[in-house]
């Protein structure tokens, strides 16, 4: 059991790396950084910025005016200092060790290795690092407040995803962030992010999961806003990273309100935060209260996993560096919501059926909602953002319809496979953006400026194609197994409406993913019938990215295919669940129906984008009134963002103005009025203080005389 008992090392190692980088190597980096003199006459500015590692670029504009660049590269850091490089090495090394450890745990519990006996199905508590917040005899009732960590198969599966994706993202960032200011700071944030997510993974009770939950929010805030000197680009409908990070944080906070109220309801009724104790305690709870509590807890997952109606933060979060997007979308941030629902699955199962209905329907609506928006996006990363929202919808459908027999297995299986191919999609996109940045010397994310990149960057293209096929559910790629299981389960469990929705969504997914692939890597006139190369619509000459970028792509491509072949996943998560059987999948008509829908989507995207010019497609869409309106609605994301904008601008700010008026005129008025009254009275009343002691004596004895007469009168007449 020692193998399991020391698994807390996986949890604490990123924190250790964080501390080493923040207090050690980053300080070294800051101290030894060599600076190229900025433009002449700007010494003061350069000096003012000496202390921070956020840099604006200053240059003379055509009319001699100061231009502050919105670029992400720092000319004053031409080469990385040893301190910065070592920060990267430390985080990769430590995360690599944690990753190896978690893979050993996974292989051991899955029965491939046999170093230690399998874990008991309810998991084990990691008592070495558990900590009670109040443990002496004074706080009898407070014994439920403790920091506790816990390990079971669900945690191990998630831990493998988190550590593997974090490792690859960190390895990748060494190449991607090479020219970016604050290289060491970036790695410290990445390790903090991994630690926060692992805290959620290891959580034994709601308190710890909530701490991890907030830490994940904090680290995503720091990382999305990493390039804090970048400006908004209104013409591309892009926020500045600083606003995007605030939006992400605030939107999550909206969901967290429900989450924390749900936790409080559960605690008030059962007196415990512990998941395993709650599972038995909630059976005595009132069903309606429990259902409400679980729906409120799910609100937290809606916020964190960007489900409708709180999906608005995820597309702007693309403003962060691309490795961060990969991390957020694949392993750490948005997966937290799915993992939390999987972790509290017994509580949802104990609640009324409405709880699971809400989970499944929110997921289903989100899936088709986001997929339809992704159809028309032209921003390379934004397509991926909407596809993540859509795929997370699938996971919630999987969790919501699975029922107690399957347990959280189907949803978690999709999370598991999705993590690899979505990380691959993002890192591949990052590779493209990296190449285009070097080719065009500016940041380009618009797919209309790409095209035909496959012949220029073959490794990126082939791995991206694998990921596209995996996410589309192309047979024998990982998405085929995990997604079709969820779609099939919707049918098997009689939820035909959700079946149709998810089936349609898989067609849409296939369409927009292949569309994105062809727009970026292929095009009319390329090889393989337009899939490989074609006309390049941008400027400059992009090249394949360095090895630090392509190695993670290849590894993730292998995982994107292989992850689906873990047929024992369901019983690994929950021993009673039936496993996937390969022959059953092949002989089921539902599998082939959804494959047919996916293939239809792929075929439609293929014929549309390899046979027709992009300009021609736009002309047709603009020429047809229905298509034009539809296009407009989808491009504006069903006007949800605009609706929220109006809501906040007029309703929330309106209420704020009323409250501010109340504060200014009523509260402040009361306070100032009292003060004014006292001043006014005092101006005249102070004349009483004559300074003559006999006057005071008159008042004193006069008062006593009055009192005496009063008491005498009372005694004499009232009696």
């Amino acid at each position, binding site marked *: 059991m020692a193998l399991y008992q020391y698994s807390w090392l996986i949890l604490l190692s990123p924190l250790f790396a964080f501390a080493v980088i923040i207090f050690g190597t980053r300080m070294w980096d800051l101290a030894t950084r060599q600076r190229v003199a900025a433009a002449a006459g700007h010494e003061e500015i350069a000096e003012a910025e000496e202390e921070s590692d956020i840099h604006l670029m200053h240059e003379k504009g055509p009319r001699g005016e100061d231009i502050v660049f919105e670029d992400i590269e720092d000319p004053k850091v031409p080469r990385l200092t040893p301190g910065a490089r070592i920060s990267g090495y430390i985080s990769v090394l430590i995360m690599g060790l944690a990753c190896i450890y978690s893979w050993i745990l996974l292989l051991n519990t899955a029965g491939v290795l046999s170093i230690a006996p399998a874990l008991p199905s309810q998991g084990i508590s990691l008592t070495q690092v558990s900590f009670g917040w109040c443990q002496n005899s004074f706080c009898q009732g407070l014994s439920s407040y403790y920091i506790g960590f816990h390990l079971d198969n669900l945690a191990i599966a998630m831990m493998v995803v988190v550590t593997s994706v974090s490792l690859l993202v960190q390895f990748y960032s060494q190449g991607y962030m090479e020219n970016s200011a604050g290289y060491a700071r970036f790695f410290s944030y990445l390790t903090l992010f991994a630690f926060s997510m692992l805290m959620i993974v290891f959580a034994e009770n709601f308190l710890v999961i909530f701490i991890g939950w907030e830490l994940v929010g904090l680290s995503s805030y720091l990382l999305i806003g990493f390039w804090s000197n970048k400006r908004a680009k209104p013409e591309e409908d892009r926020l500045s990273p600083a606003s995007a990070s605030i939006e992400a944080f605030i939107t999550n906070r909206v969901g967290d309100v429900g989450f924390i109220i749900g936790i409080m309801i559960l605690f008030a009724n059962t007196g415990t935060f512990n998941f395993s104790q709650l599972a038995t305690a909630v059976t005595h709870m009132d069903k309606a209260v429990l259902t409400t509590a679980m729906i409120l807890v799910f609100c937290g997952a809606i916020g964190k996993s960007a489900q409708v109606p709180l999906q608005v933060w995820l597309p702007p979060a693309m403003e962060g560096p691309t490795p961060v997007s990969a991390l957020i979308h694949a392993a750490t941030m948005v997966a937290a919501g799915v993992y939390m629902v999987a972790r509290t699955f017994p509580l949802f199962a104990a609640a009324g059926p409405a709880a699971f209905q809400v989970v499944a329907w929110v997921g289903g609506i989100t899936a088709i909602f986001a997929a339809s928006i992704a159809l028309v996006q032209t921003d390379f990363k934004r397509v991926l953002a909407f596809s993540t929202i859509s795929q997370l919808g699938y996971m919630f459908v999987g969790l919501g319809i699975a029922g107690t027999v399957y347990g959280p297995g189907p949803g978690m299986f999709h999370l598991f496979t999705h993590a690899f191919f979505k990380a691959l999609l993002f890192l591949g996109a990052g590779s493209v953006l990296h190449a285009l940045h070097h080719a065009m010397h500016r940041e380009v994310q618009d797919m209309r400026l790409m095209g035909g990149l496959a012949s220029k960057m073959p490794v990126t293209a082939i791995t991206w194609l694998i990921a596209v096929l995996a996410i589309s559910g192309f047979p024998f790629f990982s998405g085929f197994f995990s997604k079709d299981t969820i779609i099939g389960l919707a049918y098997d469990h009689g939820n035909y409406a959700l079946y149709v929705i998810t089936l349609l969504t898989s067609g849409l997914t296939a369409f927009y993913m292949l569309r994105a692939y062809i727009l970026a890597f292929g095009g009319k006139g390329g090889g393989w019938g337009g899939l490989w190369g074609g006309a390049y619509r941008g400027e400059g000459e992009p090249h394949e990215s360095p090895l630090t970028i392509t190695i993670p792509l290849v590894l993730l491509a292998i995982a994107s295919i292989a992850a689906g072949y873990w047929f024992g996943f369901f019983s690994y998560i929950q021993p009673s669940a039936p496993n996937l059987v390969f022959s059953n999948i092949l002989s089921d008509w539902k599998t082939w129906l959804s494959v047919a829908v996916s293939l239809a989507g792929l075929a439609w995207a293929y014929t549309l984008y390899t046979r027709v010019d992009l300009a021609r497609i736009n002309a047709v869409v603009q020429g047809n009134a229905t298509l034009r309106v539809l296009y407009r609605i989808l491009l504006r994301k069903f006007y949800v963002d605009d609706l929220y904008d109006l809501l906040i601008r007029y309703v929330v700010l309106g209420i704020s103005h009323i409250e501010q008026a109340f504060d200014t005129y009523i509260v402040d008025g009361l306070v100032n009025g009292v003060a004014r009254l006292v001043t006014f009275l005092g101006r005249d009343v102070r004349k009483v*203080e*004559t*300074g*003559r*002691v*006999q006057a005071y*004596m008159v008042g004193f004895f006069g008062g006593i005389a009055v009192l005496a007469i009063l008491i005498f009168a009372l005694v004499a007449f009232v009696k």
Partner: protein
Amino acid sequence: MLTLNHFLVLGAVLFCIGLYGALSKHNAIAVLMGIEIMLNAVNVTMVGFAFFNTARPWSTYLTGQIFAIFIITVAAAEAAVALAMIISIYRKRSTVDVSEINMMKW
């Protein structure tokens, strides 16, 4: 035959004389004397009440008398302090007229 009322009337008359003196005199010494008279008026009342206590005879219950002794002691100390202050004020301002000693006003 002396009764309690004799003592009370004496105390009241003395108190009023003292009060009049304390309020109307300009000389600080005279004011002080008024205050002393008021204190002694209270002493008379106190001792009178104690002496005519019917519930407990004065021979076994001396609270009133002891109170009076305390007041005499305090009055002596107070007189000493007050006279010292008056002398000090006189040295500074060459007057003991209380209507002129009014620096502590608004």
